[in-house]
């Protein structure tokens, strides 16, 4: 150390930071931890490993991962378009990206359910007697085959494809709320990516594919990874929008946060806190991974 800073006040600002973090983050989290402990460790362990709870982890963490990965592809394309091209309505489109951030999640959930419920705008297009849904109608060979598949049973309703109230609905909601995270993290990096780098690659004889995979993608990867982890972390904890569009059936469409609420209804505070603790731990690991990857990548590229 021994390095002199231009501005004084390290002690003061660190003090503020610690107090602030303690009040806003650490105190509530310790309360959660203490509440968890109040039920005894046996109760805690039984709660977080019961089959229904484990099934909900699979739904929460699994579907969130798929949604985050999809955003990792399409969010990057969206960011690319917004940065690299000039077209009418670009600024409007740019603003729309933030909407899932700003919208109360319950509103998003209700809106999505209104679109995708069986008798609503998009949902009814997938009824078996509609052109789009006819492909999976049990009357067609494909639909008949699909009906015999265990994994598809949840999606095939009486009158058509079930989007709302099945895992598809959860996937759509989680993709919706995660999208801005990827776009907004990747966008500034693309902005910093100068066109002349691509031109140099082309001059040196790289094909378009090579220029993309060898030159552009390595530069974007850390940002994409951060965006995807943020979207993933957000999706895992999402409650407001999913509650409306998920069917909440145990073992099928029940996310972990819903189980926390049902524990509270049963006055099982320590059980609810236990599940909260598991979610907290998961989020923390996800964020730690993301930070670690970034640090590693920075060192690798000799930035920092």
């Amino acid at each position, binding site marked *: 150390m021994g390095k002199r800073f231009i501005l004084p006040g390290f002690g003061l600002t660190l003090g503020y930071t610690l107090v602030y973090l303690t009040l806003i983050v650490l105190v509530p989290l310790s309360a959660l931890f203490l509440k968890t402990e109040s039920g005894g460790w046996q109760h805690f362990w039984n*709660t977080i490993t*019961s*089959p*229904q709870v484990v099934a909900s982890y699979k739904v929460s963490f699994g579907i969130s991962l798929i949604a985050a990965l999809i955003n990792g592809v399409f969010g990057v394309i969206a960011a690319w378009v917004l940065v690299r091209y000039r077209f009418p309505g670009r600024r409007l489109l740019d603003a729309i990206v933030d909407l899932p951030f700003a919208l109360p999640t319950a509103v998003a959930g209700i809106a999505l*359910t*209104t679109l995708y*419920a*069986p*008798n*609503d705008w998009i949902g009814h297009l997938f009824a078996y007697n509609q052109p789009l849904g006819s492909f999976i109608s049990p009357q067609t060979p494909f639909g008949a085959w699909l009906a015999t598949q265990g994994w598809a049973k949840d999606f095939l*309703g*009486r009158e058509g494809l*079930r989007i*709302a*109230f099945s895992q598809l609905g959860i996937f759509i909601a989680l993709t919706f709320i995660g999208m801005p995270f990827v776009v907004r993290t990747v966008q500034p990096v693309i902005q910093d990516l100068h066109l002349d780098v691509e031109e140099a690659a082309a001059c040196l004889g790289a094909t378009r594919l090579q220029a993309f995979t060898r030159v552009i993608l390595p530069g974007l990867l850390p940002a994409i990874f951060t965006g995807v982890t943020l979207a993933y972390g957000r999706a895992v904890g999402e409650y407001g929008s999913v*509650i*409306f569009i*998920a*069917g*909440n*059936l*145990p*073992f099928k*469409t029940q996310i972990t946060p*819903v189980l926390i*609420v*049902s524990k*509270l*209804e*049963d*006055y*099982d505070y320590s*059980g609810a806190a236990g599940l909260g603790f598991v979610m907290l731990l998961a989020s923390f690991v996800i964020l730690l991974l993301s930070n670690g990857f970034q640090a590693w990548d920075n060192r690798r590229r000799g930035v920092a």
Partner: protein
Amino acid sequence: MKFPAAIFALPLIATLHAAPTTLLNVSYDVTREFYQEYNAAFTKHWDAEKKTGIQIDQSHAGSSKQARAVVDGLAADVVTMNQDSDIQLIADAGLIAKDWRSRLPDHAAPYTSIIVFLVHQGNPKGIRDWSDLAKPDTQVIIPNPKTSGNGRYSYLAAWLYAKAAGSDPQQFVTALFKNVPLLPAGGRDATTAFVQRGIGDALLTFESEALQITNTFGAGQYEIVTPTSSILAEAPVSVVDKVADKHGTREAATEYLKYLWSGEGQQLAVKHFFRPRSQALLAANTALFPKLKLATVDEAFGGWSEARKHFKDGGTFDAIYQPAKP
């Protein structure tokens, strides 16, 4: 938690204005309209009797959530819930005297409701009784018994029906819930799924909610099927002793609850489709409230603390969804 803070502020502002006695009634979701009218009626009655003036504030949300809020410090003078166990929770926390059930008539429940079926106009599936709901190719909407009082009553009513019919209740509820395509968190969510989203052949809900639908926006689209037996859902009320004593509002709070049993209070309950306790009123409204075989939770299950065991982790409700052991 901005919301409860705002509720605290309401009575506070009222007292700052040196206003008359203020009561906070903490209630559940679907009583909003009923208590709006009842409060106006009671205020008039109180003014006429005591000439001191009274103001009543209200708070509505899910019943169990409200009970927890009162335990956590929401300063309710009176609570009006839809389930015995919600008031018991507050009593167990020491805020309400242990004998609250016997302080008012009818186990402290001034009005009741039952679980009925709401079906589409013309009853296309020909649903007449509980057994029809468990038939294959029928879809039934029931809110999640783990998160909703409405769902708990529905589940217990189905259980009772099977028991009385001499079949295995566990098997019956399993068959019934096989027909449930989604488990909304609360009663209103279930209504939305059935009415707005058009899902399901039948909705299980309180008679009060069903009558409200068939008499208002759903007129001509839905009809009510009253099964041969159901459960009598008693909606209990109580003064919150600790809070009322601190506020010095015990007299007003007690009178507020007692007046629910008055002719006017009972009339208003009927108007909002709750079954009144007054036998004369009930008999005069058999078109709204048909007679059927009814049992309370106390009679059929020996109280809520026993009944709730069905919904505990690993209880009979969880058993429905437990995958078969390989």
